[in-house]
């Protein structure tokens, strides 16, 4: 069959996710049936979306439909093309794995203080909203879907609202989502002002002067950036993610942030079209700052989900570095290298969705079994949760960008794009780009440090508190979701050429050209620029690793000798048995880095030596400068102004009547 009904299936996916919100409400009395139905429908929505997106991307198909719903002069335009299809695939696939994970995870919320129906209802709306954002081809439906996505996720974040800090975190999230939405609305407004309708095709054809284009770009950058989580607009991320249920955090971090990236890419590349190199430099610098600051903040956290949230900031920074490079090369006319950088950024979107969801799902399993948020109380969980531990290890290796997994491939592509910097004749740009790459290298190394800490403290060593010993392996649904994601991380790491040639289609559509046709050297070698310049054969490397492992193993295990390993107690220097308190804690592990980079955080460290028989006390508080010195003062200023403005509300009846009286006088004067 030549053409697949992708747009129909995509709309079906949206319908199924809305159905998964509404239909299970029939089963409010039977929570187990409710949860199963909801996730069954959500899973099928995810599969449909993944299929539709994947097929669109692979067949380079584009289809548009105009729905007659909505206002008479503002129809709803829906369009699927390779860019939307790629993100559709990401959203659908992660939703599917979350749906496998969900029923077992929600078992503990059934019978809890809040009804499970709320959770499944808003999850369905959330996923449906995201899919609708990807399909929307006119500004109006885009904004409606965007707000639906934001509001539905607010309710999900505020699910456990019996605690005050959860409520305030959800409030910050909603506030920033709404402010970001306002910026996006203004950006679309600028574009719509120069075109005759709200549809994307009309806006793409609109002629913009450079000033107005820059204004639209800045508005879109701030608006989409607030949702994506770049520094300094990231403060909602570390507050909202720990509070939401883990599978929702996986969806938000893995998928919602990517929808923001989609919006930004669509806006800048399709709708504005003509890109200035200064925009690229701004995006590059903001991306580099987000990457470094994100990982440095993450290093200091010991709440597992907050740490993962800060790592999302870091990875969004890496994606923005790729986008910035792409914009710089696009503006100076080097389209193939711009395509390479764009492919690197989009590939990282896919990879981040996969490994971040994997990490959040694993964290959810750990948190469910140990009932702890604090890493400092965990330890030794690899023995009790082996499958979760193995999948989490795969996630840790992927996010640290280590070969042969997928995180490494997208970083490799970003470095290759950055290395083409000398092609730009300007020396200053040629210097900024390698410095940004050095910042990327610093980020990668710090991410490795952070995940050694996370994995070592949580899964290895000895349990640091008694309730950890009661943890059991997660149930089949949760395990299978993690295994699927881990396998995908491996597959996208060792077969990168297929993904790159698929994403190349997007680059061709947006930029006019993709990678050089004669650059590729077959499916085994990833050679984006040319065989001589750089090549990476991931599968042969993996085979070489396995071959040398086997060789060494068999060399060291000759048949004649007794190769038994003796298990003995760990050596404890003769002082007595090891206690779990002797291990390194997470704060201790991060201490050298904390001292080296101490000027980047607001640190309050207090140590009281032991006295009068009381034990020593140590407290460490690491806070975000931006939150303390930018957001809190702005909040205080707004409250102050609001208090001043509230003087209007005197409470006196005669004052209110006087307001009406003087307004009437004014209007009479103006009209006459």
């Amino acid at each position, binding site marked *: 069959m030549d053409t697949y009904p992708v747009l129909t299936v995509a709309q079906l996916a949206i319908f199924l996710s809305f159905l998964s919100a509404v239909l299970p409400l029939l089963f409010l009395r039977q929570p187990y049936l409710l949860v199963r139905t909801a996730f069954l429908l959500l899973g099928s929505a995810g599969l449909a979306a993944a299929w539709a997106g994947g097929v669109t991307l692979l067949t380079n198909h584009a289809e548009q439909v105009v729905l007659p719903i909505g206002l008479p002069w503002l129809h709803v335009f829906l369009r699927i093309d390779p860019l939307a299809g790629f993100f559709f695939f990401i959203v659908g696939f992660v939703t599917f794995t979350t749906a496998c994970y969900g029923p077992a995870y929600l078992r503990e919320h059934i019978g809890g203080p809040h009804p499970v129906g709320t959770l499944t209802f808003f999850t369905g709306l959330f996923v449906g909203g995201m899919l609708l954002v990807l399909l929307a081809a006119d500004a109006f439906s885009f904004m409606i879907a965007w707000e639906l996505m934001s509001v539905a996720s607010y309710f999900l974040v505020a699910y456990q609202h019996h605690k005050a800090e959860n409520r305030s975190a959800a409030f910050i999230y909603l506030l920033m989502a709404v402010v970001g939405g306002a910026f996006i609305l203004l950006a679309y407004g600028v574009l719509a002002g120069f075109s005759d309708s709200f549809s994307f095709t009309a806006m793409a054809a609109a002629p913009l002067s450079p000033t107005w284009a820059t204004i639209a770009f800045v508005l879109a950058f701030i608006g989409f950036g607030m949702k994506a989580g770049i520094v300094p607009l990231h403060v909602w991320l570390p507050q909202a993610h720990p509070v939401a249920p883990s599978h929702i955090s996986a969806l938000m971090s893995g998928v919602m942030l990517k929808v923001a990236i989609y919006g930004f890419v669509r806006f800048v590349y399709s709708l504005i079209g003509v890109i200035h190199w200064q925009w690229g430099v701004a995006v590059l610098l903001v991306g580099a700052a987000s990457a470094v600051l994100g990982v440095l903040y993450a290093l200091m956290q010991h709440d597992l989900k907050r740490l993962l949230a800060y790592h999302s900031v870091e990875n969004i920074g890496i994606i923005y570095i790729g986008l910035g490079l792409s914009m710089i090369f696009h503006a100076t006319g080097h389209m193939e290298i711009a395509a390479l950088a764009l492919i690197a950024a989009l590939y990282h979107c896919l990879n981040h969705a996969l490994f971040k969801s994997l990490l959040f799902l694993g964290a959810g399993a750990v948190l469910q079994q140990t009932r702890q948020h604090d890493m400092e109380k965990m330890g030794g969980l690899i023995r009790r949760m082996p499958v979760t531990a193995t999948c989490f290890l795969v996630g840790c290796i992927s996010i640290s960008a280590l070969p042969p997994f997928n995180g490494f491939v997208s970083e490799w592509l970003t470095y290759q794009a950055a290395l083409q910097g000398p092609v730009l004749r300007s020396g200053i740009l040629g*210097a900024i780009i390698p410095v940004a790459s050095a910042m990327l290298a610093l980020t990668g190394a710090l991410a490795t440090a952070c995940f050694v800490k996370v*994995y070592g403290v949580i899964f290895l060593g000895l349990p640091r508190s008694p309730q950890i010993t009661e943890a059991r392996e997660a149930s089949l649904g949760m395990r299978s979701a993690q295994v699927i994601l881990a396998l995908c991380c491996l597959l996208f790491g060792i077969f990168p050429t297929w993904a790159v040639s698929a994403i190349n289609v997007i680059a061709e559509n947006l930029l006019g050209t993709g990678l050089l046709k004669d650059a590729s050297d077959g499916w085994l070698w990833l050679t984006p620029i040319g065989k001589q310049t750089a090549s990476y054969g991931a599968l042969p490397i993996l085979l070489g690793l396995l071959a040398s492992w086997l060789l*060494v193993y068999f060399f*060291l295990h000759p048949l004649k000798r007794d190769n038994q*390993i003796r298990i003995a107690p*760990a050596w404890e220097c003769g002082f007595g048995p090891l206690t779990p308190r002797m291990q390194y804690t997470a704060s201790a*592990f991060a201490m050298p880095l904390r001292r080296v980079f101490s000027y980047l955080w607001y640190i309050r460290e207090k140590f009281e030596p032991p006295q009068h028989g009381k034990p020593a006390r140590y407290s460490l508080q690491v806070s975000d400068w931006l939150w303390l010195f930018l957001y809190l003062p702005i909040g205080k200023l707004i409250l102050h102004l609001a208090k001043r403005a509230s003087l209007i509300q005197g409470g006196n009846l005669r004052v209110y009547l006087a307001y009406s009286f003087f307004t009437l006088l004014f209007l009479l004067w103006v009209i006459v």
Partner: protein
Amino acid sequence: MTSWIFAIVQTLCVVLLAPFMAGWVKWLKCKLQNRQGPAPWQPYRDLLRLSKKQAVVAETASPVFRAAPYIVFSVTVVAASIIPVFSVEMPTAALADVIVLVGFFALIRFFLSLAGMDVGTAFGGMGSSREVTISALAEPALLMAFFTLAMNASSTNLSTVVSHFGQSQFILHPSLIFSSMGFILVALAETGRIPIDNPATHLELTMIHEAMILEYSGRHLALLEWAAMLKLTLYSVLIVNFIIPWGVAMTIAPQALAIGVLSVTGKLLILGAFLAIAETVQAKMRLFRAPHFLGLAFILSLLGMISHIVLEVR
């Protein structure tokens, strides 16, 4: 086909000669310190002895502990296969370039650090924590130095870089002088030599690499020691082949190969002598001075890159 066989043979040679390089450096250090010292081939005896002994594993260790030596050694061997040592005509160099090499070293460090955290003792955590700090600070300098080299040679493929510099006549590049200085400092940090880490220390508080492998014994320890020696040899090969690339064979013809083997071995022995002298003259610095050391390496690499842009292009 012959070039593949040559690549495998070359890798085996490097793997088998790595203990001699470490032994040579140690022998020279002892001679400089007026001691008798072990013979240069003592590491071979040590590795053989360790591989015959029974391995003891702590009760609290997990499968990561038992798998880590194999993973570390295999990754180091694969890294050895992509670096051009005696000749640049190596098809394996197309498998992975400079950035993948950095990624391999990062993978080794990841698993070593995890193994250090595994048993639940304080020393392992100490070693892992220090190791990841130093590597995190060394990585930007390392990558910047490699970038300067790659920008000069317009490629990140290791064979292409070495042959580009080996085939051109002697040109003084300020950028390469600075990047090489930065790279040498980073190599000292990454291979765990004085002034960052003392490879011969017996005090746990001064260990970094040794602290992470403190719990290992028997064949596991043999693999980890061999991997460390191989890493030292690989960094030495990178230094000699990038800074003084003349003499490396451009093909695998027997005559060129013989010259290549002799010149590279000679250069490695001389570099070993310089390393021994540097280790004898300096003292190990305290951990919180290591960031200054690595900051200096970064500034040197940055200066190298800036010199390239300002002085050498157009």
